[in-house]
């Protein structure tokens, strides 16, 4: 692993930042650390007040924490963003085409692009919903595609989240905090706004309403309830879209139509942004022990009377076992080369791959095929001997449960630490919305940062934090002043 690319400082360090980002580097130099720290604490106090917390699994002591926030934004230049967006649109269109095909004609299997086994043997391929075509043929309305970066234009997809990706509330709240605490940045840089996200999401939902829903389809957000770790986000989104937040008990299905029970009586529901996993969404079809579901929901969906955002069954598109075939999948449906590459992946179920991984455990990242949140993960270069030996045993016992990837030199972004600003590794989750007629990439996203020096694990459950993600609208700073007008200078280019 070589020297990591720093997204602001480049390879040159604080005094020799990347072209176009000199003004930001100067801002970082000129605002004293204690002032940055004050602003950061103010932001975190707000998040705590709002209740933006997450539950840490396996940590009963600290059931709810806020995700640490960092005050230094991560920045995408306009041209970088334009290229990245193209790749995201291509990938998302391919994911939707794949889902439409795999639950329909299965052309991709007939063409021999994927081993049939990979689909039919995978529990994420849901026979229960085969034969259903969602309204307007859209499956993954909201995709949160996780990326890592190793150079100015070198992005790799780490994971395609096509089920119910979360995190968008951080994008919005982080931005709000930044505007309040660092207003000078928004005067000095033309930062694309992200606050239209709720409007775009609502527009997306309305666009996929079933035919016959009329001009004003009734859209709701369905949450499992306040005990869910992402409840804040559910209520935040419903609130910002101005639509109802409902729990399963608020919905009834009658005659294959979904109704919301209100004080004034029943109101028909046309589109549901559901934040309940497939397994729990309808106890009549999926897990019968689910208390979170809406009985009959899948029947209403099959009858074409309601749109589910995202569609059930999407897990087959973002499953880790499918991931390694995504380049072929993108190529098949887009009929062009994938713009966004995957991270090279060894499938440990394949003997040659397993041998390679076992021989290079101190270099690779090993992941559970069905794991998430950074659990069941080995980061070879930073792992102890004992951890490596534990994984070796686990891999030999059940190789099919694991994949491995090279440890990439993940990009860094300057981050406020106890010792001042210091580079920390980041990843990125942009949000892509797909409606009936268009695919839109929101100019921003969720940047996760590994706060521990040298750490590559950005998961919030493993000590990661978040940053705001600026997308610059053009590459020239609007003005080149710093520090809220205190200092004026002609810099940049």
């Amino acid at each position, binding site marked *: 692993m070589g020297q990591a690319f720093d997204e602001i400082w480049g390879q040159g360090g604080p005094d020799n930042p990347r072209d176009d980002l000199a003004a930001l580097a100067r801002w970082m130099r000129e605002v004293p650390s204690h002032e940055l720290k004050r602003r950061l604490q103010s932001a975190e106090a707000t998040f705590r007040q709002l209740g933006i917390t997450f539950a840490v699994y396996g940590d009963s002591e600290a059931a709810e924490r806020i995700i640490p926030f960092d005050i230094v934004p991560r920045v995408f230049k306009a041209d970088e963003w334009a290229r990245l967006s193209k790749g995201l649109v291509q990938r998302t269109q391919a994911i939707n085409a794949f889902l439409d095909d795999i639950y329909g004609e299965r052309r991709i299997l007939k063409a021999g692009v994927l081993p049939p086994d990979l689909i039919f043997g995978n529990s994420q391929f849901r*026979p229960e919903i*085969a034969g259903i075509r969602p309204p307007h043929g859209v499956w993954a309305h909201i995709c949160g595609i996780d990326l890592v970066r190793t150079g100015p234009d070198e992005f790799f997809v780490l994971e395609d989240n096509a089920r119910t990706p979360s995190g968008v509330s951080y994008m919005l709240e982080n931005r709000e905090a930044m505007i309040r605490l660092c207003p000078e940045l928004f005067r000095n840089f033309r930062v694309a706004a992200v606050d239209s996200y709720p409007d775009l999401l609502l527009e997306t939902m309305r666009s996929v309403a079933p035919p016959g829903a009329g001009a004003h389809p009734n859209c709701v957000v369905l949450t499992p309830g306040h005990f869910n770790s992402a409840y804040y986000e559910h209520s935040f989104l419903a609130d910002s879209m101005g639509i109802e937040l409902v729990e399963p008990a608020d919905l009834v299905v009658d005659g294959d139509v979904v109704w919301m029970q209100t004080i004034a009586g029943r109101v028909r529901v046309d589109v549901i942004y559901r934040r309940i996993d497939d397994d729990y969404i309808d106890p009549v079809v999926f897990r019968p022990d689910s208390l979170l579901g809406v009985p009959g929901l899948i029947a209403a969906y099959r009858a074409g009377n309601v749109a589910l955002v995202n569609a059930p069954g999407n897990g087959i598109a973002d499953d880790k076992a499918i991931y390694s075939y995504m380049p072929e999948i993108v190529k098949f449906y887009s009929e062009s080369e994938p713009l966004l590459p995957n991270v090279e992946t060894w499938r440990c179920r394949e003997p040659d791959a397993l041998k390679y991984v076992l021989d290079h455990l101190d270099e690779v990242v090993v992941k559970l095929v069905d794991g998430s949140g950074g659990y069941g993960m080995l980061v070879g270069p930073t792992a102890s001997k004992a951890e490596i030996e534990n994984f070796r045993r686990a891999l030999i016992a059940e190789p099919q449960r694991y994949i491995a990837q090279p440890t990439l030199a993940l990009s860094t972004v300057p981050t406020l630490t106890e010792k001042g600003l210091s580079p920390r590794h980041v990843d990125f989750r942009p949000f892509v919305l797909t409606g009936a007629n268009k695919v839109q990439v929101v100019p921003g996203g969720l940047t996760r940062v590994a706060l521990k020096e040298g750490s590559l694990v950005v998961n919030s459950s493993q000590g990661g934090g978040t940053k705001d993600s600026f997308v610059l609208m053009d590459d020239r700073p609007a003005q080149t002043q710093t520090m809220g007008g205190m200092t004026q200078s002609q810099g940049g280019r």
Partner: protein
Amino acid sequence: MRLSVQHETRYRFTEPQARIVQLLRLFPGDTSHQTVVNWRIDVDCDARLRESIDGYGNLTRMLYAEGPVETLCLTVTGEALLSESDGAIEATDEPFPPELFRRVTPLTRADDAIAMLATGSDLAAMTALAAAIHGRWSLDRRPTPAIRSAIEAAADDRVSPRDMAQIFVAAARAKGVPARYVSGYSLSGDDERRTLAPHAWAEAHVAGGWFAFDPAVGGRSGLDHIRVAVALDAAGAAPIAGVRMGAGEEVLDVDVHVEGSEQA
């Protein structure tokens, strides 16, 4: 042969229920050897029924009953013509290729003991598997509402037709043979008094086609089975999957009144 069925499922609740939603897989489809002459379902309370087809191609009805519901009785009345068959199942609606039915589900995992029941992967081996299950466990036809896994069932001495079917499916898949669970009706009892009762068996894809095997009788199934629904396991083909909204207990009297008749 013409088989007619009248089959009641009666639910009683200790307290009135606000709503009941059920997914019914109680309607057989036509196959090369099975022609449904007429088939209907009656519900004894105010309910809406909606017709559909599930992902496996099974004919379904959704039942929505508004409360207060204290009892609910579903009556299936139907008639089907069955023709001679050696177990081969043809002309069915097949939305999936056989490969899907190699997938192991939590209910159809095989341990070593189950895997060893199958000695091969051809038609003869599958017929022998049905016989082996028939010989190994004693059959208990009393209705059992709770579905258990093949491994749980195999630890018992007395098992239901559903258990036997799942053990068959688990053992066949352990040999790489696509196999699936079937729910329906079959004639049972001795020659004196034969009745048509809800039943479960299995199908395996061998020799280029689907064949039906009934471990409860220890061989291939033929003339006396009305095939209703198929799925990866018993949960996916359950004749009735339902949810009730309301307090109190549920008392289920399944199959209180079953009639079968056969005419040549």
